[in-house]
């Protein structure tokens, strides 16, 4: 965990430095003697640098860290990665396949991957979820969702 905390602190430190730099180089601090677009970002940048430095120092001084703070088993990693990539794929497919098919595919594949082996249950969950989504967003709230090349 120590390594992860150090990396996190360094990322935020870099972000803070970036904000300070842009407030000097890209955005004006004062505009007609009034606060300009770079005014608050400079203070926020300094605030972040200070906080990140404190975070880094406290992490370096800390001697004990919680064990198993991150899941260690491969199956958990795969499940997390699958749900993220599934979400990404569903989003990318919304415009191509339309909401109904994208949602059904996402639900069907994920439900199967996460352990459900009953084909009937998988189909039921996939189509049921798609129908509920269509009903709530398109019929009830009248929000147009992408219909894709198949037209639904």
């Amino acid at each position, binding site marked *: *965990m120590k390594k*992860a*905390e150090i990396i*996190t602190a360094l990322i*935020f430190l870099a*972000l*803070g430095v970036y*904000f300070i730099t*842009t407030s000097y180089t890209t*955005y*004006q601090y004062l*505009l007609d*003697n*009034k*606060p*300009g*677009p770079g*005014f*608050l*970002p400079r203070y*926020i940048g300094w*605030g*972040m640098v200070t*906080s*990140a430095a*404190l*975070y880094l120092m*406290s992490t370096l001084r800390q001697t004990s860290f919680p064990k198993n*703070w991150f*899941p260690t088993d491969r199956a*958990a990693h795969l*499940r*997390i990665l699958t*749900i*993220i990539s*599934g*979400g*990404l794929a*569903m*989003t990318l497919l*919304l415009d191509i396949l339309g*909401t109904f098919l994208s*949602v059904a595919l*996402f*639900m069907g594949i*994920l*439900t199967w*991957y*996460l*352990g*459900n082996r009953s084909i009937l249950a998988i189909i039921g*969950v996939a189509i049921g*979820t798609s129908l509920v*989504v269509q009903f709530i*967003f398109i019929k009830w*709230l*009248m*929000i*147009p*969702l992408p219909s894709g090349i198949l037209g639904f």
Partner: protein
Amino acid sequence: METLQLLLQGLSTALTPINVLMATIGVILGAIIGALPGIGSATGVAVLLPITYGMNPITAVILLAGVYYGAMYGGSISAILINAPGDPAAVMTSLDGHPLAQQGRAGHAFTVASGSSFIGGTFGIIMLTFLAPSLARWALNFGPPEYFALMVMGLTTLTGLAGDSPIKGLISTFFGLMLAMVGLDIVSGVGRYTYGVLELLDGIDFLPVVMGLFGVAEVLAGMESMAYGEMITSKVGLRNMFPKAREFFSLWKAWIRGAIIGFAIGVLPGAGATMASFMAYATEKNFSRTPQRFGKGHLPGVAAPEAANNAASAGAMVPLLALGIPGSATTAVLLGAFMMYGLRPGPLLFAQRPDFAWAAIASMYVGNILLAIMIIVFIPLFVRVLLTPKNILMPLIIVITLVGTFSIRNNLIDVWIALIFGVIGYLFKKLKIPAAPLVLALVLGPLAEKTMRLSLMLSQGSFSIFFTRPIALVLMIAAFAALVIPIIIQLRASRSVKNGS
């Protein structure tokens, strides 16, 4: 008298059929969401936000408020049945609730939790009714410096108290402020940190961020394990719900103590329902003649924290409605929701939109009564929800979150933002960096910048304006104390641990 009149007007709005229906739906959905382990009220409100987008703002807020206090109760269902609190505020309920379930008295625990939630919630709402308008009236005298100081205080209190470490809270706050800087600068017309992406000129919308931080991130955390824990389902039916009347009403002292502690802590920004329930449980144990029975299935151990966490959720609405400063993650999400509907909580809300403010307060009375009834009637349904397999539930939450995010502006970039913040939120969770200060900073950032600029224009660029006006000075001192005191407490605690070891 005027307050009661306004409340009656609010009740006439809250009691229209559509609003009662929405309060009922909100309460039931909230209880279901709250019952699911790990999915708290902030996630519930965030995930359901897009569904309210096309609604009348009053109806939408009634629905979301119902979800909020429904979830506060729902957390106790999983705490009692599977010893896995659905919400951190229900942790203390599990200490005595689960042993009661093991003794075959789960129904009694539910009824006590429901009755205590009702009493705590009602006490909190009555206090809210009288306190919020007075506070709002006082705050009407605020100018830009006072508003800026108030926002700084809101940010520092949440920063100092949310999570385990105030330093991590600070990181979260500054990250939120950085995100709030993205977009068109209203004074100069310059696009800041947009990198040529046109969609970013409008700034980063709070909704996809919240959907990611609370919706997607919770699912990712839930994916670490596919098990919920062992559930006790025996004797959870209407027949076994009610303890003896004498035993039930003997809890009145626990209710009073819990409700007072809960409300007082709930009003403080950042403290929240979790701290309230911890303190109420500890106080009840201290006052008890039989402290040894706590933790082994003692009804006051359920009554006090449940009264406290529902009173705290009403208390957290006081700074939100009266000052526009949320006191918890859920109220931070609610603040964003209000702004999404074009409403700005704070002193002007009571002056400019009394219809909305009073309907929102009145709906809480209605929702609280509905909650007490629904919980008893639908308890078998809530128990069934806990049997929903994770392999269906988790993908379902992702679908609702992502499609809901897309539906707001029909914009895929929002979905990408939700996914990115889902991963960030998950990492925050793992590193114990609180997400609530980020949300609050993102929502308050643009307003803070505007009031700061106005103040500095008034003072011709001098920061002394924040320290020479009495109210602004008091608020700035409070803001400083709210940040520094938790840091000192943490340093002392770590020193005493070192000395002890």
